[in-house]
């Protein structure tokens, strides 16, 4: 009998994917029987670069590991370096770091909700969630000066204070989202088509989540109460007694499907709002950094010897940075970064098993994957085996510009000739 299993490659570049990754699905009819996942298409060698730069430059690199959780990596890195070098962080700075992290969680979860419903074909709701997301983006821009890459944490504190005039703006945002919560919950959780497309789809059992080291909302939707903020307190999260959220907090038994992942992220938006409100109430006045001058900071870091770990619960789950410093060296000796999608790569495999081809986009999106975080050599292959390096890309791009220029020049020449001829 002929083999009934077929292979369907999806990606690295595919309309159903927002970022590059290659899935090779084995299917029998419409049913998925296996999947092979190949990441690495957005690997930029950031850790390698970091080992050849001073720590301030490394901070800039860390900020650019990911555009969505652009504060998660600096938060983990600064903690790792502060632990290694023994730098204290003033209380006010700790609160500001938490406020910006939680603002990031709100924007990231709303962004995800939009992407998820878009994958289901529900674009009206995509527009609604992204419209309401603009509010938190405005606040982020107001507080940090940027919509992405906030450049807030620095070793020993933060780079910008929150001014008294900004407090009411943040409080207004809190009221705005609280007023919206019921509506968003109703739209996302009570909609018959969303429920039909997500209930029982992409299931990850708690045993699989545990064994495969799932993190973040992906693990929590399976009923595991794992949250770095709760399990391994850092900054001021321990003071707040942050609790990991599972679907049980919404009164439902966790099933570990896509629907549960929507519930968890939605409740986490509400949780982040509460945390921000509490930060605004409790935040003491004071310094925002223990070493305000960057040259002094750099000198102190150059003398530091030691190693440290920094962790953070990013919107997608656990981020960990390990750093080792040697006295007399400006650059770190070791810098290892782990982003949440890295841990959530293997849990994808059981999620896809026995599912239908049509559900691939929503299951893929359900862990809120972030490839640029996870991949960190850029090598392009065509039929001729070769590597395309930056100088060649530059040369190609200059060549194209030259061709466009000469074409435009040629056209205008022809236009002038035509004009001349017509006159």
């Amino acid at each position: 009998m002929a083999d009934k299993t077929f292979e369907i490659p999806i990606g690295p570049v595919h309309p159903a994917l927002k970022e590059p990754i290659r899935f090779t699905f084995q299917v029998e009819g419409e049913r998925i029987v296996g999947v092979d996942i190949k990441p690495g298409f957005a690997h930029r060698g950031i850790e390698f670069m970091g080992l050849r730069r001073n720590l301030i430059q490394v901070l800039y690199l860390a900020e650019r590991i990911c555009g969505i959780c652009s504060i998660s990596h600096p938060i983990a890195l600064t903690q790792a370096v502060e632990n290694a070098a023994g730098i204290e962080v003033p209380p006010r700075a700790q609160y500001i770091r938490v406020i910006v992290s939680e603002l990031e969680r709100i924007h990231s979860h709303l962004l995800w909700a939009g992407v998820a419903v878009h994958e289901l074909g529900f674009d009206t709701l995509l527009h609604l969630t992204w419209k309401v997301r603009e509010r938190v983006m405005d606040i982020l821009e107001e507080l940090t000066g940027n919509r992405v890459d906030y450049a807030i944490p620095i070793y020993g504190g933060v780079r910008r204070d929150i001014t008294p005039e900004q407090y009411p703006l943040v409080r207004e945002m809190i009221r705005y989202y609280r007023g919206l919560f019921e509506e968003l919950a109703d739209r996302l959780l009570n909609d018959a088509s969303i429920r039909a497309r997500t209930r029982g789809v992409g299931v990850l059992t708690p045993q699989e989540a545990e064994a495969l080291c799932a993190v973040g909302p992906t693990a929590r939707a399976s009923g595991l109460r794992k949250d770095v903020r709760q399990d391994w307190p850092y900054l001021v999260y321990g003071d707040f007694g942050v609790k990991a959220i599972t679907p049980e907090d919404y009164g439902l038994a966790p099933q570990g499907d896509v629907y549960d992942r929507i519930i968890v992220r939605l409740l986490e938006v509400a949780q982040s709002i509460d945390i921000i409100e509490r930060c605004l109430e409790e935040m003491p006045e004071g310094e925002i950094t223990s070493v305000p001058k960057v040259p002094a900071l750099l000198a102190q870091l150059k003398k530091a010897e030691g190693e440290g770990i920094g962790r953070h619960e990013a919107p997608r789950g656990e981020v960990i940075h390990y750093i080792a410093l040697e006295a007399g060296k400006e650059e770190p000796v070791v810098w290892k970064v782990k982003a949440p999608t890295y841990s959530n790569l293997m849990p994808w495999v059981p999620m896809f098993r026995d599912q239908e081809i049509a559900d691939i986009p929503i299951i893929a999106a359900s862990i809120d994957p972030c490839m640029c975080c996870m991949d960190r050599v850029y090598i392009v292959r065509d039929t001729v085996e070769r590597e395309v390096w930056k100088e060649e890309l530059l040369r190609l791009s200059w060549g194209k510009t030259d061709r466009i220029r000469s074409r435009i020049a040629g056209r205008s020449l022809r236009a002038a000739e035509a004009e001349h001829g017509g006159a």
Partner: protein
Amino acid sequence: MNAQEVLAALKDALGERLRTPEIRTRSVGVKSPRTIEEIWAHIDRESLLEAVGVLKSLGPVHISIISGNDLGEEIEFLYHLEVGFGTEGGEVLVTLRLRVPKSDPVVPSLCGLIPGAQTTEREKIEFFGVTFAGIPDSRHLFLPEDMEVHPWRKDEPELEKLVKRAVKWEEQDG
């Protein structure tokens, strides 16, 4: 569970094979500060599986990542493991350090105990050119399958060329 209990269990099982174990503490929080304890220890590759087995018997074990460093003759791996991940304030971070000689770069795979360790082990294979004995899938993960340069090895002959090219690009941009 606290760090003392975890360390005691490790010492009981491994004895002298757990070298230079230490508990590093620091205080976190502003209004109600609490102490966070981390365990750091050296271990031989022969004892790795046993040590992780002990940790696993204490509670759910999560592997965050394996960090690595090229020390010259040897490669050092740091296993960042969390015991009791998912218990409120009860998680203990354990970092086990092990060294393997470059002449025999074989490390036992943790996949039998923690299947989720496969991603990070595959990354170490391509970046350090080591072998994990018993890993179910040893293909390259992030790098192309036929890439023979191991970028995190400091004695990599091709590495200098890679770096020189990188520096040249930067100069061009500047």
